[in-house]
């Protein structure tokens, strides 16, 4: 574990720590998500380099995992914080109040997984069309099940 993280580990007892192939991973409960992120930013993690999600469908009791990668330029350290969300109404606090750069990433996760980020200023679809139904990266969104889009386009001038 990196030295910077030790103070963080002392402060949050609810967070469990892992060493995933040499990388520091913090498993954060969903209710401590924003609080832990605030403390991490204070500890020197000034960049939120990525926010993404994993859909475990029925493989795990908690269906969704939200993954945020943080970088500390000052200490040359990386930290990955992971939380889990249930299948009903997945909602998590937005990190945009801490890192503006998380804005696009959280919109992408909302678009692809339907996870709602509480406190995000502009939580709209980003990659899919605005009227798209469903969230494509969910595991129950099958490949080849989507009707062909824009198939009437040849009739339009």
């Amino acid at each position, binding site marked *: 574990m990196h030295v910077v993280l030790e103070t963080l580990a002392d402060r949050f007892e609810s967070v469990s720590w892992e060493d*995933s*192939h*040499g*990388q520091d991973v913090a498993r954060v409960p969903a209710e401590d998500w924003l609080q832990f992120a605030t403390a991490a930013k204070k500890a020197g993690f*000034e*960049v*939120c*380099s*990525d926010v*993404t999600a*994993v*859909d475990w469908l029925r*493989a795990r009791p908690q269906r969704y995992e939200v*993954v945020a*990668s943080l970088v500390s*330029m000052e200490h*040359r350290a*990386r930290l*990955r914080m992971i939380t889990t969300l249930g299948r009903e109404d997945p909602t998590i606090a937005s990190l945009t109040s801490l*890192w*503006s*750069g*998380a*804005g*696009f*990433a959280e919109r*992408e996760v909302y678009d*692809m997984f339907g996870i709602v980020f509480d406190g995000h200023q502009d939580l709209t*679809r*980003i*990659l*899919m*069309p605005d009227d798209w139904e469903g969230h*494509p*990266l969910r595991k129950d969104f099958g*490949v080849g099940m989507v009707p062909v889009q824009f198939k009437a386009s040849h009739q339009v001038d």
Partner: protein
Amino acid sequence: MTDQKTEETAETLDIWVAGTEEPQFQPTDEGTQEFGPEESEYRLADQFGRVVTDDYVFDDEVEEDERTVINMGPQHPSTHGVLRLQLELEGEVIRRTKPIIGYLHTGMEKTAEQLTFSQGPTNVTRMDYLAPMHGELAYSLAVERLLDVEVPPRAAAIRVLMSELNRISSHLVALATNGMDIGALSMMIYGFREREAILAFFEKNTGLRMNHNFIRPGGTAADLVPGWKDDVAAILEELPRRLTEYDDLLRANPIWMARTQGVGVITPDEAVAYSITGPALRASGVDWDLRKAFPYSGIEQYEFDVPLGENGDVYDRYRVRVEEIHESLKIVEQVMDTMPKGDYRIGDRKITPPPRARIDESMEALIHHFKLFTEGFKVPPGETYVAVESPRGELGCYLVSDGEARPYRMHTRAPSFYNLQGLPIAMADSLVADTVATIASMDPVMGDVDR
């Protein structure tokens, strides 16, 4: 003299001014007509164009409804693909910008879940099509970290050679399109011409000019062809001289300087807050390069500097790219001189296919080959995130495996996607004419943004 004459003409001619009350026509002599009683001399003078009014006066406070929203793209030639921008203008000044993306979204992260780990590089190489080697490298490194294997030194060196050459070719395109957008058309032709030498080298070694699928989990697809050192030496000899020439050409051009300096400024704080990486971050003066911070593929054994800008404007981003090409050439030269001998992939036949000749001789080799290309190799459960410094910034690959031969989830942290967030900051309160210069300096690749 003339005024008198006109007044006389107005009196004598049949003129009725629109918008006034219709004059009561008196039965007069044929061909004469009188003006209405309220017709003043001023209005007459206005009609005849003798009064000049200045229309070009703006109030200091512009009302909300005087703002214009214009749409730029997704088919605009200067938006580097299908980037669409909504610009909110006040006169000619941009107040707000909203990038709208997704026009090139092809669901590559979903596709990656359908492909085996050995098929994966064919998918990721198509994301950032100007830097395909970096996409393959990030993916392969992530798979190797999950497998806990280390590639031989020669494979690592080939990867560094290829990815640094790819950085040069990508930056050359960035310089070329930046020049083209501002109107320096010769730069466009020069940039693409120099890139051709590197693409020819790629074609000779990988078989393809783009989308190589050359860097694969476990090493590379093939060894470098005999005589590759001569090709690299030719690039090393020719490129620096020509690049300096183009650089001098542009910097001696007052129009180029005026259109790039002080335009599209991003401060270091803004760059960090908006997760901007790569040359756009370093142009703002932040010393952050993943090749130095978290070295990968043995790049720490080569000497190079990280060029930094000062002002974070379009000019600095251009300068940083030119300097980075020179630094990458240094790395390429060192790799060429110190290329280790050995195998170009790991010897584990569960991960890399056996040599072609062995298949005819060995039953085991045949089985390995068959298993590898039908069901692929299985990767132990786990998750990892590996990032490399692509020409556009931090290109990361978040890979989750559940123990099968296909990734459970593959996510790419696309640098262009995050760098686009800096566009509204860079373009706020700048002129419409500077829009294309700013977009070009951020160097977004829409295949990378939309995936």
